[in-house]
């Protein structure tokens, strides 16, 4: 600890921190313009200067470390004068076009000028007059307003790991720009917008929407991925106009990705439902709530009477709150009397959960967003975490910057592979082989504690099962060289501590339950705790949906899961789907459609008329996430509140309320009146699952390829997420659609040549299950033999090609492609 005096106040702070930090920690404000705690000190703006006793020079407090006995003054006439001059210089070229600048009212430059500025500047120069660069889709760059603090450049490259912007040129004419002054093509995270102290970088969708002082801001939780970032939504006259991150706010500490920042406008999509719809003679007609609920309860009663309670099933949703999902469960169990419930987690989190239960005896698996920090070695397995969980990904990059060794095994180039210390280029879908191979090496070299580990249940079978995974064989299966396999295994085994991370979800087809089991084996083999394994739940409330008991194994045995309900015709007679769009987002949708069409009653409750809703008998309009109160549980298992920020359109209602009303109209007395009532019931009913356990079991896993490519279907199709989207809801966001609006097929240059496909041309893609058409993107970021696409876009229909793998193995699909003429 170091003791020093700041403005007469004796303070004691950690050694090595800067004067600015020490001041901030003690509630003393020093103006600053180029400092951000996420970035390395830069010392460009000189606003943060302070006086130090016995020092003739002024010190830039943001980049000067504290020293014992320092006596610092942060606000003196001399400093005010210096800051005035600094500002005067900054404002020489600044256009002072605050009247038409969206930043006005919350602009650091304006605020500091207001505090320190002089009415007159002594220097007369031409104000900069470059037209704003409006070519990019979401970020607008007005170089005139830039004070060259470099924060945007640094957050983009240091923190975001993207490096899309540079300070170009030298001296006065320096501008912030992408290389060669081209159109900004980047992650569109908008972090640079939040960090810019002036109006040089602004959100395009928000342009001229409202003055800052008319905006009402409220915090809520992002509706997209499992990171559970806190969004600060700005509304005016009942409309959400923008979303931003605020320093230190929430789990994300002010960071956001582009989905959270720009994607909220999906709630304004054109096909929002405003009234209930009932299908009559094949077409939808608008109905009142009473008619719709009566219709549903009559049909349900009839179906229960004729075929029994078990002929009814329900699908819940990661997009809905805990309260919504809880009510769905309550409706199913106590009104219908059926336990047939499941959700999209069946393709992701549930698999993870099941595997970890087998290996560690855990009923719940939460990650810790900060887990990467301070780890000796981080091993990422075939997962594009910077895309699926962007803010968790930022912490991985930060750990790497701070000295962790980042090893990434993947079949395509990603942001993580670019920032990795070691990049193992592997064949897609071979994670299990890779893990088994590494464990074999660890076993053979005795890099584990045999005495303890060999007592673990299942060890002998496990050890025998690995016999065939020799480096030579594994190298052939995975495409990773033997030397790399050995050195990676050694590095991971010898590390002081480690984090192994991967993702599993419905939108990816290369990993499954067996991957998680193999990774668990590695963790147990190395004598690590479960914390070493970080597998984030995929979406905003996947964790909560599971926790609320929307899963087939929560109550009774012999219950129908999602594979029975959606892929087996005649397994159900009625299905109630809340907030999910299986036709667009689950694999093998032709089969799903067949099943859904065979139902006697399909009720879909959603915010928009989705592809699934189009097949329903009754469609019920639900409020979106911004239009209701409730809670989400993020991938860390942390429960966070979301708030009703604007009114729901038309007659739409929160999901839980619809279910309560339906229960009432089915003649069931339910005493819940408001959201607090639901929360109380949840507290009473749902118990917290234990998060630790001493159980350790080795489960032998053998590598099985998905559909192997053959003569007829020579390529492997891999589905992955794209950064700007999450599930299919984000595709209704107009802002995000500006960046990526359709699925495309990424294909290696060599394959493109072989199959006569050129960039941007149309391709016909066929698997054993279906055919679709996509535009090709020829690239060297994917390997030959493999093509990549994403499942978000309903019109892409990519899931016509894929199949769900029930046994938990990975399920890559073999496809053939042909170029489409014309």
């Amino acid at each position, binding site marked *: 600890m170091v003791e020093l005096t700041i403005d007469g106040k004796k303070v004691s702070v950690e050694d090595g921190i800067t004067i600015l930090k020490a001041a901030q920690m003690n509630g003393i404000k020093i103006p600053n313009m180029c400092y951000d705690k996420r970035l390395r000190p830069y010392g460009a703006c000189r606003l943060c200067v302070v006086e130090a006793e016995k020092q003739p020079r002024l010190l830039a407090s943001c980049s000067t470390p504290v020293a014992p006995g320092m006596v610092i003054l942060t606000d003196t006439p001399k400093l005010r004068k210096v800051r005035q001059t600094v500002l005067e210089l900054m404002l020489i070229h600044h256009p002072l076009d605050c009247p038409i600048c969206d930043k006005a009212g919350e602009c650091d430059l304006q605020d500091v000028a207001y505090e320190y500025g002089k009415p007159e500047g002594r220097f007369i120069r031409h104000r900069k007059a470059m037209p704003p660069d409006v070519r990019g889709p979401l970020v607008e760059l007005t170089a005139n307003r830039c004070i060259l603090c470099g924060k945007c450049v640094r957050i983009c490259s240091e923190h975001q790991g993207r490096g*899309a*912007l*540079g*300070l*170009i040129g030298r001296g006065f004419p320096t501008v912030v720009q*992408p*290389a060669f002054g081209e159109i900004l093509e980047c992650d569109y995270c908008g972090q640079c917008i939040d960090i810019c102290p002036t109006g040089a970088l602004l959100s395009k969708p928000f342009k001229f929407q409202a003055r800052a002082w008319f905006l009402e801001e409220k915090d809520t939780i992002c509706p997209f991925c499992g990171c559970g970032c806190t969004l600060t939504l700005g509304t005016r006259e009942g409309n959400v106009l923008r979303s931003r991150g605020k320093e230190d706010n929430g789990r994300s500490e002010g960071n956001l990705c582009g989905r959270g920042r720009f994607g909220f406008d999906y709630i304004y999509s054109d096909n929002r439902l405003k009234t209930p719809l009932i299908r009559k003679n094949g077409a939808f007609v608008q109905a009142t709530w009473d008619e719709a609920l009566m219709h549903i309860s009559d049909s349900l009663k009839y179906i229960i009477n004729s075929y029994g309670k078990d002929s009814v099933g329900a699908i819940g949703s990661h997009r809905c709150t805990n309260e919504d999902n809880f009510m769905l469960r309550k409706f199913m169990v106590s009104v219908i009397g059926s336990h047939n419930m499941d959700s999209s987690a069946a393709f992701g989190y549930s698999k993870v959960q099941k595997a970890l239960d087998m290996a560690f005896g855990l009923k719940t698996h939460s990650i810790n967003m900060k887990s990467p920090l301070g780890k000796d070695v981080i091993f990422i397995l075939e997962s594009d975490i910077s895309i699926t969980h962007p803010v968790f990904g930022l912490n991985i990059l930060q750990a790497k910057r701070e000295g962790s060794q980042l090893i990434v095994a993947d079949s395509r180039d990603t942001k993580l592979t670019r920032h990795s210390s070691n990049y193992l280029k592997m064949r897609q879908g071979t994670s299990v082989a890779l893990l088994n191979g590494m464990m074999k090496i660890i076993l053979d070299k005795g890099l584990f504690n045999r005495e303890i580990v060999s007592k673990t249940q299942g060890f002998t079978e496990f050890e025998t099962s690995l016999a065939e995974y020799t480096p030579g064989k594994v190298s052939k299966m995975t495409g990773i060289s033997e030397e790399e396999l050995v050195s990676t295994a050694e590095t991971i085994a010898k590390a002081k501590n480690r984090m192994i991370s991967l993702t599993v979800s419905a939108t990816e087809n290369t990993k499954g339950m067996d991957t998680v089991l193999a990774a668990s084996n590695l963790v147990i083999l190395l004598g690590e705790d479960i914390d070493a394994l970080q597998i984030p739940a995929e979406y905003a409330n996947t964790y909560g949906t599971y926790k609320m008991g929307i899963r087939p194994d929560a109550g009774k045995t012999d219950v129908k899961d999602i594979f029975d309900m959606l892929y087996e015709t005649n397994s159900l007679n009625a299905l109630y789907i809340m907030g999910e769009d299986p036709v667009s987002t689950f694999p093998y949708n032709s089969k799903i459609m067949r099943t859904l069409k065979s139902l006697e009653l399909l009720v879909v409750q959603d915010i928009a008329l989705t592809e699934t809703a189009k097949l329903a008998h009754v469609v019920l309009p639900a409020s979106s996430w911004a239009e209701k109160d409730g809670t989400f549980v993020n991938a860390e298992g942390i429960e966070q509140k979301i708030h009703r920020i604007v009114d729901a359109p038309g007659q739409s209602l929160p999901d839980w309320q619809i279910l309560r009303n339906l229960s009432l109209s089915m003649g069931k007395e339910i005493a819940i009146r408001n959201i607090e009532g639901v929360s109380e019931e949840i507290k009473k009913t749902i118990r917290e699952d234990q998060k630790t356990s001493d159980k350790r079991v080795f489960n032998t896993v053998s590598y099985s390829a998905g559909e192997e490519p053959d003569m007829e279907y020579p390529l492997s199709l891999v589905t992955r997420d794209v950064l700007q989207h999450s599930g299919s809801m984000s595709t209704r966001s107009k802002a995000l659609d500006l960046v990526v609006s359709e699925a495309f097929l990424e294909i290696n240059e060599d394959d493109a040549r072989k199959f006569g496909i050129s960039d941007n041309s149309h391709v016909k893609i066929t698997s054993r299950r279906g055919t679709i058409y996509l535009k090709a993107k020829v690239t060297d970021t994917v390997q030959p033999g493999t093509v990549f696409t994403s499942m978000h876009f309903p019109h892409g229909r990519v899931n016509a090609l894929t199949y769900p793998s029930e046994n938990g193995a990975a399920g890559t699909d073999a496809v053939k492609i042909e170029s489409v003429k014309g």
Partner: protein
Amino acid sequence: MRVEDLDVNEMIGDVGKIICEHDRKKGVLIHAFQKIQQDYGYLPGEVLMTLSKKLSLPLAEIYSVASFYKQFHFSPRGKKVVRVCMGTACHVRGAKNVLNALEDEFGIKQGETTDDLAMTLETVGCVGCCGLAPVATINEDVVGDIGKKKLELLVKAIKEEEK
């Protein structure tokens, strides 16, 4: 030099041992630019792109460094680089006229290159022989005392070299 063959550690030498990976890569940029410019005469976009991939440094960062230095160019340059001195002495003795005359004669502005890549026209601040003002240089050769007559000779000299 092929960018693919660039060896960061060799180029940076012993200093590499005491600086971080990122700075090591950044440290070789200027050398790399100079070699690339030697081979191509300028820094072609695709080559910088290859360099960016090779070093895993963002293109914007690479471009930002290069754009700081006047010695690096991003478009092809003429065979003859003509620099008109705009330093104080030359300014006083009519450098502006020399520049204007050359601009008119070759139909390009300062900083530009003729379409046939024969000549690039630039300005400099003082080339160190103020006694001869106004001065211009053609590649390494200095032409001084540019009056009306000399100007014709200068133009001729530039054009002659083309053949």
